[in-house]
């Protein structure tokens, strides 16, 4: 199938390091996924570092863009996690930029979408939750467990509320990772399917070409929607990260 909608998610080795010829756990493969992770990081770093090279008092266009990114994330962290949360600002900023640029790279034809793999989003979500748990216990000690005991709830409801709170906490990494992964995966599959319709319909002759305008219009609209989803999911990921970090800083509700 030329337009197999799943093929775009396939991971292929570009080259491998070590373990030449020997299959096993010691072989390190540099895949298309890894390539786009590297490209994402290089693009973000190059843009932010080069655009602010001049350190202009009056910013140029690119410098202004970098500053806007900075202030956008800084305001987000400050409003959800408070001033104390600003120590996690580089972390949230890195997450936001990584997800955003990886998503946007995915919109370029023939580019691989790093965030369309559950293992990547799950790893990022686990990283967030690990930071929350580790910092939460470091800062509050056992007081961090107050997170599961909402203030102002009558004692007789607590046996019901506490398990719910624990389950909701444990489901956070799953919801955080699945939300991003599923959005990217579904969006790209839909896009591919509709784009495939154009090709297969237009091969049916004049009527087919006429009919192909419908999926074509749909593909255009979906492309716009996917750009929106790319930015929105990066934003959601970063906002939720900030809110979870807020829980680590202020465990009592």
């Amino acid at each position: 199938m030329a337009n197999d909608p799943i093929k775009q998610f396939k991971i292929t080795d570009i080259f491998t390091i070590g373990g030449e010829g020997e299959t096993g756990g010691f072989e390190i493969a540099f895949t298309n996924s890894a390539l786009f992770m590297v490209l994402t990081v290089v693009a973000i770093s190059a843009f932010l570092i080069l655009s602010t090279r001049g350190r202009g008092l009056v910013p140029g266009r690119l410098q202004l863009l970098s500053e806007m990114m900075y202030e956008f994330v800084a305001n987000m962290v400050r409003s959800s996690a408070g001033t104390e949360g600003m120590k996690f600002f580089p972390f949230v900023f890195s997450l936001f930029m990584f997800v955003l640029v990886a998503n946007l790279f995915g919109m370029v034809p023939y580019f691989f979408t790093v965030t369309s793999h559950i293992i990547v989003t799950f790893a990022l979500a686990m990283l967030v939750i690990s930071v929350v748990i580790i910092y939460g216990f470091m800062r509050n000690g056992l007081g961090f467990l107050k997170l599961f005991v909402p203030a102002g709830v009558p004692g007789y409801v607590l046996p019901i509320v506490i398990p719910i709170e624990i389950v909701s906490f444990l489901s956070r990494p799953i919801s955080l990772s699945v939300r991003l992964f599923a959005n990217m995966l579904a969006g790209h599959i839909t896009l591919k399917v509709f784009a495939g319709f154009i090709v297969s319909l237009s091969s049916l002759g004049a009527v087919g070409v006429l009919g192909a305008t419908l999926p074509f219009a749909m593909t255009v609209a979906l492309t716009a929607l996917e750009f929106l989803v790319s930015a929105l999911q990066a934003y959601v990921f970063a906002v939720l990260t900030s809110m979870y970090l807020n829980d680590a800083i202020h465990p009592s509700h």
Partner: protein
Amino acid sequence: MASKTNSAQEAAASVFPPFDPSTFGSQLLWLALTFAALYFLMSKVALPRIGEILEVRRDRIEGDLAEAERLKQKTDQAIQAYEAELADAKQKAHNIAEETRDTIRADLDKKRAKVEADLAKKMAAAENDIRETKQAAMEHVEEIASETALAIVTNIVGRTAQKAAKDAVAKVVKG
């Protein structure tokens, strides 16, 4: 390129790629490496630099605003000082004009008084003179008249009767 791909990957060709565990290790490894690099670059280079730029700009703007405020206050002070000075100068000018007028008037009054006094003195002296002259003249009138009458009578009569002439004159003068 992927000619020597391992059998695990070939077997997993039918597996939905995002759920293919054989790729997890590689993805996790590269994600860890790239994200660590990104975090390092962001926290050590890019973000401090942008933060510094924003800080410097905010300081600059605040400094400029403070400077503008200071200059404005200075201007206000200067305007106030100017107005006070102006009012003072007006008052002074008014005072000087008043003083000058008073001086001139006083001087004038003094001079006039002096002139008037002088005039009065001269007038009195003149009146005195006139009175004295008149009195002297009156004294002489009688004598002249009697002499004149005597001369006339002598001329007419030929002889003189001095006593009678004197009496007659006296009678006329009295009458």
